């Protein structure tokens, strides 16, 4: 069983954290990943920094800019994944990327390097099912799960087409918009989770806008198997650029608080136990 399938078989719901490789620097980025994992992230999404991240809101875009200014290349991203893999041998790792990074490297080389570094899945945010034939054979060849995206605007027919390609888990986009924190999540999440649930046995994780423990709770209540938090964590990096210790503390505190939303009525000792296991 793959690490991703193993995680969802063992744990439900799971907490997925997102970080941009190379943010706030190439070396510091490993420290950020380590803190996130130690604080209880069940699955880590590592973004490949890109010059034109159109699916992302301002917080994550600025993280891409910081990573690129620090000189982060795809080689550095694979090296980071390798280090994270050594630190957390069982942790499922998903690379989050824009397609031109793969196109430029060539899909064969990209997926082979991703697999060699220890990545379990790849999510290509600007490669809809219409174009995904370009990468499908390579993902399969190197045993990489291809995480697909379904949006609130995706029609039921498209959902079926997209799910034919899916493996690992399905990423449900909670809202119509780019990534970024929101005061409240739209009401339609339960409907989306339910509609997709009828069409697949894969685990469903919800992301975009999820930034508070109560959001996590509502996503779990909607029936999702996982929640994905990005901007709310990336913002903490940005807010503590000049104080590494404070940055790590803020990240760990936030992850512990957000994880509380996974359980309807958490008891304190249960949370402590989970944190140690994570």
């Amino acid at each position, binding site marked *: 069983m793959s690490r991703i399938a193993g995680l969802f078989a063992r744990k439900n719901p799971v907490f997925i954290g997102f970080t941009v490789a190379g943010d706030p620097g190439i070396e510091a980025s490993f420290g950020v990943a380590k803190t996130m994992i130690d604080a209880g992230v069940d699955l880590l999404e590592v973004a490949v920094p890109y010059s034109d*991240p*159109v699916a992302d809101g301002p917080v994550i875009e600025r993280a891409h800019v910081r990573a690129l200014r620090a000189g982060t*290349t795809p080689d550095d991203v694979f090296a980071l994944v390798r280090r994270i893999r050594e630190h957390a041998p069982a942790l499922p790792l998903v690379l989050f990327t824009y397609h*031109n990074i793969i*196109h430029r490297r060539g899909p064969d080389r990209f997926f082979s390097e991703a697999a060699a570094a220890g990545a379990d899945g790849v999510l290509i*945010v*600007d490669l809809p099912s219409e174009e995904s034939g370009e990468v499908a054979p390579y993902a399969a060849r190197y045993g990489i799960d291809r995480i697909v995206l379904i949006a609130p605007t995706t029609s039921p027919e498209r959902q079926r087409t997209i799910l034919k390609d899916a493996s690992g888990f399905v990423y449900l*986009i909670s809202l*119509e918009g780019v990534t970024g924190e929101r005061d409240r999540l739209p009401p339609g999440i339960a409907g989306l989770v339910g509609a997709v649930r009828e069409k697949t046995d894969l685990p469903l994780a919800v992301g975009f806008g999820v930034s508070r423990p109560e959001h996590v709770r509502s996503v779990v209540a909607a029936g999702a198997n996982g929640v994905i938090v990005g901007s709310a964590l990336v913002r903490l990096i940005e807010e503590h650029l000049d104080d590494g210790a404070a940055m790590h503390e803020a990240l760990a505190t936030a992850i512990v608080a957000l994880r509380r939303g996974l359980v309807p009525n958490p008891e304190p000792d249960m949370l402590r136990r989970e944190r140690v296991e994570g």
Partner: protein
Amino acid sequence: MKAGRYGIYGGQYVPETLMSALIELEETYERVRENPEFSRRLSWYLHEYAGRETPLTYCGNLSRDLGCRVYLKREDLLHGGAHKLNNTLGQALMAKFMGKHRLIAETGAGQHGVATAIAGAALDLPVEVYMGEVDTRRQALNVFRMELLGARVVPVASGTRTLKDAINAAMRDWVANLRDTHYLLGSCVGPHPFPRIVRDFQSVIGEEARRQILEREGRLPDTVVACVGGGSNAIGIFYPFSNDDVTLVGVEAGGDGLESGRHGASLSAGSVGVFQGALSYLLQDGDGQALETHSVAAGLDHPSVGPEHAMLKDSGRVHYEAATDAEALHAFRRLSRTEGIIPALESAHAVAYALRAADDLDKDDILVINLSGRGDKDVADVANLHGGVA
């Protein structure tokens, strides 16, 4: 060829959230272009409002100097001062037919933003225009024009703060407001069906030019020249000549020279990549990151180009050349003095190529230059570059 592809180029490389909007746009477009009421209304706006058809002007002075027969297709005389209005009127009317209540657009030089603001005012649709912060400064006059026309201009401070970042910002707005907003993309770039829609609405340039030159000269021209940034004025004049024995030349922004690395010539000096929704030629580094570009003409200052141009380059049907900033500035002054026509700095790149190529032409050869816009917007900039001496 796959739907939405030009050879291997084009496609729809966008986040899933946008796919429903692109599918809706494609379906509407197929329906609308067959709708006689749409054609009637668009035709009214183009002729009675925008001032089509535009003249094909024989340039006696320049022809004498260059030793061939030079014509200018006068898109500078279209309402708004550039070819952009052909597309914005078409798409704004489409938005009406789609029941969208709001237009958003990106702009580089400001011409597309102005043209969208005009179309929005004429068709009673609110307009928001995303513009790189750098461009809002170098095209301050156009910012004022857009605001005067009732549009809201949103300066974009991310990335390189130019056209590509304005497109990114507009795409982000669109993803969040699909249900009531039409993204009025200004060039033949981006995901399918935009390159085709923009080409179709701009083809009126070439259709008129082809008919006008046949009336005037009794034959087709030898060469048609147009500047290429995203490539909409070029594809608009080239497309109706595709199957004719006519040399087509696209002129890109050579900036400080191709060897300097500071330019906007994606076809002449770029490589194949995915950018802003389409596979095309792109100025990128070895890892696939878009490079910073440079041109004296804000409208050509862009790292990629429409996918149909990428196909036309590979097939050899269109020749792509570059003109430097210095050549464009020289052409800007020369056309102003010899013909009394101040070209946009973008269009001056096409004129610059013509000046260079004239040596190889005979006196009976006919050269048509697409004068895609007028240069009033650039006058202050050029004055600053040259200490006020033209």
